[in-house]
């Protein structure tokens, strides 16, 4: 017989999300766009600084360039929380963050034509 379960997943997280950030809801990561590309900085060791397990997971995920939205979805934490964690990692220079390409108003014609052809080929 299995141990009686006090809580299942439907009950939501046992730890409130912002407990992971020490209660902080703001950080230098606030401005990271959903599709900003995060990359773990090579050669920096993840055990530098007081990192939590979530931040180590982010570093592991971001070994390949990864968007902020992908990271939040992957580690299943709310965006606001992920931004705070990313802000810390950025402050420790453990990640590089590149804003989306098209912020200067739109991406190039070449890219858009490639997208159109790619979508048609799906």
């Amino acid at each position, binding site marked *: 017989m299995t141990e009686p379960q006090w809580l299942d997943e439907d009950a939501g997280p046992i730890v409130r999300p912002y407990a992971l950030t020490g209660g902080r*809801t703001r950080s230098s990561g606030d401005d990271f*766009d959903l*599709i900003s*590309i995060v990359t773990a900085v090579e050669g920096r060791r993840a055990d530098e600084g007081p990192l939590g397990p979530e931040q180590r997971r982010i570093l592991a995920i971001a070994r390949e360039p990864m968007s902020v939205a992908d990271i939040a*979805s992957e580690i*299943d934490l*709310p965006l606001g*929380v992920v931004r705070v964690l990313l802000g810390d990692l950025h402050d420790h220079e453990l990640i590089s963050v590149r804003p989306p390409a098209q912020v200067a108003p739109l991406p190039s*014609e070449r890219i858009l034509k490639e997208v159109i052809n790619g*979508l048609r080929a799906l």
Partner: protein
Amino acid sequence: MAYAPSEEPVALKILVAGGFGVGKTTLVGAISEIRPLRTEEVLSDRGVGVDDVDGVEGKTTTTVAMDFGRITIREGLVVYLFGTPGQERFWFMWDELSYGALGAVVLADTRRLTDCFPSIDYFEQRGTPFIVAVNCFDDADKHEPDDVRVALDLDPDVPVLLCDVRRRASAKVVLVTLVEHALKTLTAAQRK
């Protein structure tokens, strides 16, 4: 010598907007691998008068779920789809979502056409390229795109098309139409 194309990964953002229950989730799911994305928003003054917090005054955050899909065109070129939360109380998220967006699909249901007015107003004001895709529900009367255009008082250059968001082929046409429209907007802007 031609400038070598950048090998930096490129990420593009497309928004899917429209009223509640119009098929945003279905559209994102028909064309991409849909994944959950949660936001834990800090309740601020923006929620005052909107969010009823009587009895839960200690509640400072609220969870919003978004539809989030990814289409990999090729290595290093990815299109992200974000379903915008339909209810107006989540409008504070729209500015972030639409920042730097390539364009938006406004999904419309002819039985409740007014539901998409706020989205259209929003994208018109922000100058975000958008198209209107009329999701053809089985029990809704069929309307011609031009009738919808008139009813929504759209600019003549805004594409309007009928679609069935459950079908992948139809969802593809919707996205291609949007990117073509964004491309047209881009080249028109460059000519100025």
